[in-house]
């Protein structure tokens, strides 16, 4: 066993910490929280300027795969606005894996330069966990496809250059087999969006596709092979790409505030802070395991599920503990005098409900673990 990072990765980590310290300013954080947009072009471009985005894209072979994990681990610890970057890097990885040379040339340079963002068009108003049942249609018309439908929770659509869009191309095939993934420029005629505000800080979007025309060159992967493209994407998303270490800044923010008020001397507070610190170490180790497996060419799907359930459920527990310990000060928001941890506690409390929902709900992930890791019988009735 060896838990030390190789020297070149430690070097990468130090440089990254410098970039973050320089570019993730109070102003950047403030803008993120005021706008609900978790993306910073300045940060993305600073990372790009040092070649870090290129190194992070899975499957491009230009960096150590462990660096992908280090990148998001450091961004998360700093509570930096990295969410759009995570989605974009993941989509770049999918394109690197299954895209045509033309598609790679179209999309990768802008992402590598930190200038373009991509968003996900999977879920629909009527289909979330049951994403294989989506109804956005792509119909053949001459040598083009015509796409009609609507997507929900299309976060960053309002600033994205690209959308990766799951459509149904053959309704007569069993549901998983008639899906096709498209990679479309967001400025394609017929694509529009509306904001969807949430109880958390982040705003998301509904996107609409009205007679959107796309040529075959926009098909990502095979026609009717969209499910396979999704599984590649999911393997990157769960457990390596971030979202598993958000309790680290939570603990830091809470503890520093608690020390300033004397709360940190109370045994109940101290016990809970210590327990959260333990869960933080374990969540990182589980994430590190997925990264280590991915670096050796494996697809850590179940390990990603375990990590995501562990980290998100424990983050919610930590938020509950700290908001309660903070008392009424835990209700006050950013810029309000007396707010617990300057408003971070309220922020985390409003953010935490979505973490056991997005990226695969806890229940879907538990189904996966129960069926594929423990070998228990499938509980849902099979749908054709």
């Amino acid at each position, binding site marked *: 066993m060896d838990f030390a990072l190789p020297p070149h990765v430690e070097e990468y980590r130090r440089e990254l910490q410098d970039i973050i310290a320089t570019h993730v300013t109070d102003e950047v954080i403030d803008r993120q929280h005021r706008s609900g947009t978790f993306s910073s072009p300045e940060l993305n471009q600073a990372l790009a300027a040092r070649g870090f985005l290129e190194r992070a894209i899975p499957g491009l072979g230009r960096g150590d795969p462990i660096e992908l994990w280090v990148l998001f681990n450091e961004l998360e610890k700093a509570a930096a606005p990295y969410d759009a970057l995570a989605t974009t890097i993941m989509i770049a990885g999918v394109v690197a894996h299954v895209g045509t040379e033309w598609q790679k040339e179209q999309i990768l340079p802008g992402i590598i330069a930190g200038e373009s963002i991509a968003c996900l068009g999977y879920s629909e108003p009527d289909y979330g966990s049951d994403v294989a049942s989506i109804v956005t249609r792509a119909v053949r018309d001459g040598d083009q496809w015509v796409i009609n439908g609507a997507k929900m929770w299309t976060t960053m659509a309002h600033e994205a250059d690209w959308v990766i869009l799951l459509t149904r191309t053959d309704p007569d095939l069993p549901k998983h087999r008639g899906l096709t993934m498209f990679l479309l420029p967001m400025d394609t005629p017929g694509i529009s969006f509306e904001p969807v505000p949430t109880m958390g800080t982040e705003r998301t979007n509904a996107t609409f596709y009205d007679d959107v025309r796309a040529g075959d060159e926009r098909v990502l992967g095979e026609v009717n092979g969209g499910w396979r493209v999704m599984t590649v994407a999911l393997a990157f998303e769960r457990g390596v790409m971030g979202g598993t270490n958000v309790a680290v800044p939570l603990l830091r923010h809470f503890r520093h505030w608690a020390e300033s008020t004397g709360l940190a001397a109370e045994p109940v507070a101290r016990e809970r802070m*210590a*327990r959260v610190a333990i869960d933080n170490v374990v969540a990182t180790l589980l994430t590190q395991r997925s990264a280590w497996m991915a670096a050796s060419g494996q697809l850590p799907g179940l390990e990603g599920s375990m990590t995501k359930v562990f980290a998100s459920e424990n983050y919610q527990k930590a938020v509950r503990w700290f908001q309660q310990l903070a008392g009424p000060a835990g209700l006050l928001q950013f810029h309000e005098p007396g707010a617990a941890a300057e408003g971070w506690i309220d922020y985390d409390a409003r953010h935490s409900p979505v973490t056991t929902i997005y990226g695969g709900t806890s229940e879907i992930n*538990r189904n996966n673990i*129960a069926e594929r890791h*423990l070998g228990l019988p499938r509980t849902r009735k099979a749908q054709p």
Partner: protein
Amino acid sequence: MELGLSEDQEALQEVFRAFFTKEAPPSVARGSEPLGFDRALWERLCTTGAAGMGVPEAAGGGGATLSDLVVVAEELGRAIAPVPFVEHAVAARLHPAADVVDGSSIATISLRPAGADGTWSLVPAGAVADVVIGVDGADLVAVRSTPPGAAPRNHAAAPLAHRSARAGEREVIGSAGDFDRALSEWEVATAASLIGIAAAALDIGVAYVMTRHQFGVPVGSFQAVQHALADLPGNIDGGRLLIYKSAWAGEQPAPGICDPDNNDITDFATLASMAFVFAADTAAHATDRSLHFHGGYGFSEEYDIQLFYRRARGWALVLDDPGRECLRLADRLFGPAAR
């Protein structure tokens, strides 16, 4: 970065899994109650060299690392084997007398300093140990005395006993501070045995819910059952990784760091304490769920899961309330509470 066992450690794991599977099926733990010690099993274990495996070769031992001890301890935990391997292995590293290295004398450690009257309270393996090592005042002492051979009836059927730090052949072997390292090693190795208990409990639970049918289907096909069991692999795997990291930290020549603000923790004593608390909670939770999903049979003596349930609690609680351990951990992580 290497998060798996080395080839040698994989071989070690195979050897001891085979040993405990053959020599210590659950009937052995059951048969050892109430004392919780099987001398024939201990003697067979000693023939493998396990008793002195963690002692340096220069002192006649096997030269095994703390990571190696962790591998063996997890296998012992899976079998809830009624032998004091963990206490003995840690004690042997502190005091490698020849009869301790070969296991012909059983050694243990007291987890708490002696009281004012010189008593070490509820020493793990104290009922059967020939040598007890622990803190008495400012000293670290090793005391050879006749073990009582009986334990107070207890939740885990563990061979606990009060022992005297004064009566018997008493040797000062160091100062009180010299014990800290041993306590951390005990925490890591015990954590490994607790993860072994958790892993076995999960396997037992899954096997049971696959075979037990109600309403015409296996109980394991109900989602409530599946979801509760599905939380356990992440806890077990995460706990195991934390234990491995602790052992690795304990083997590094330079001291580690303790920076919870950035989740950068490589200090051995801190990681050992974290591993212990987490493994204790994981074992308690896993055995609780596994027993529960056995229904009434889980509560009966006849089924094995209750053996695991009681040991998950006993093997951890012998140290202290995990919550109080968290307060000591908080002092390490955050500095002492400001007045």
